[in-house]
């Protein structure tokens, strides 16, 4: 049970960290200064979430584990983040849609977790939910702007949808540690889908062609795409090169 709680906490923190790490690459390179600052706020929220969660995980794990040892000294196979968050930034459309699909999921997830019997997770979820609600709102508005903006933005968003949709199924397929804690994510699917569907419809996009889409899975149990290795190489470079130092 303790192991399941630890794994689950790591799953949550890995999700936030990897998406934060991805979004951080926009800092200084956004399409307009105002939005550069906006997405960077989301990045800071996400990495902030991951830190609180890693701190909790370190406590659960005991020994000399710290937020940094968990983030910087676990390998590709030990990371549990969903595949969706490690997908490349691509263009603004792909980054926005990845954020929207994930924030929409995180909103459902954290809403559920606020009622969780583990009081630490419940408290973390309560705080994070405010941030996530804003991410959801911000990314949703951008989905509308791009979908219903110009012909080019519509095409780009449609192609982002094609790229990312196969990575959404995994979010709702319970990993052992989720099921052991009685937190089957399948329960979140209906709400998530209806929010996604209504937004995409307003953005003049449709999910019709994805009805029988084959879903990629594995991230939650440590089987990732090739992307993760590169992400961790960057992320962990300093800690691996200068082991055991304070920064």
């Amino acid at each position, binding site marked *: 049970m303790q192991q399941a709680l630890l794994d689950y906490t790591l799953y949550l923190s890995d999700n936030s960290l990897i998406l934060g790490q991805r979004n951080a690459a926009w800092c200084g390179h956004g399409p*307009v*200064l*105002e*939005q550069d*600052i*906006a997405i960077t*706020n989301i990045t800071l929220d996400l990495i902030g979430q991951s830190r609180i969660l890693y701190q909790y995980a370190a406590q659960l794990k005991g020994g000399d584990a710290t937020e940094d040892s968990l983030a910087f000294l676990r390998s590709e196979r030990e990371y549990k983040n969903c595949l969706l968050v490690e997908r490349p930034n691509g263009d603004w459309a792909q980054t926005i849609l990845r954020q929207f699909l994930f924030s929409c999921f995180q909103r459902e997830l954290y809403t559920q977790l606020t009622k969780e019997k583990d009081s630490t997770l419940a408290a973390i979820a309560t705080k994070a939910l405010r941030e996530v609600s804003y991410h959801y709102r911000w990314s949703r*508005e951008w989905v509308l702007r791009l979908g219903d903006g110009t012909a080019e933005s519509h095409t780009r968003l449609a192609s982002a949808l094609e790229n990312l949709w196969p990575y959404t199924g995994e979010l709702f397929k319970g990993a052992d540690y989720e099921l052991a804690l009685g937190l089957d994510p399948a329960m979140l699917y209906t709400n998530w889908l209806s929010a996604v569907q209504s937004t995409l419809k307003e953005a003049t996009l449709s999910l019709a062609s994805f009805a029988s889409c084959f879903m990629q899975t594995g991230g939650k149990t440590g089987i990732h795409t090739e992307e993760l290795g590169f992400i961790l190489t960057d992320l962990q470079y300093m800690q691996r090169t200068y082991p055991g130092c304070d920064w």
Partner: protein
Amino acid sequence: MQRLIKKLYYGDIPDAGGGTAPSNDQQPTTDWPLWEVFIRSKQGLDHKHVGSLHASDAQMAIENARDVYTRRQEGVSIWVVESKRLTASNPAEAGELFEPAADKVYRHPTFYNLPDQVNYI
């Protein structure tokens, strides 16, 4: 006209070609509209002008203002108005607009001398 500065400071390196003037070839801008931002720093205080930013619509202007001007909890409420919709008084008319108020000293409480024993007025 006086000679222009040739002296250089940090952030004040001459533009290429030695020119000191900004571009004059003004083209129609594709910038998003400019908005003025007003923030209430806490309940009970007025909204105060804090600056401006670009946004494609009012909703985005509010969100950009949140991200740009309240990163350190500077606000609890935001107003935005498109800059072109603001009307400002003309500085050249400042004299006739504001100077007539200068000699109305009787509008200020200190104009009135009351005996010391009269308190709380």
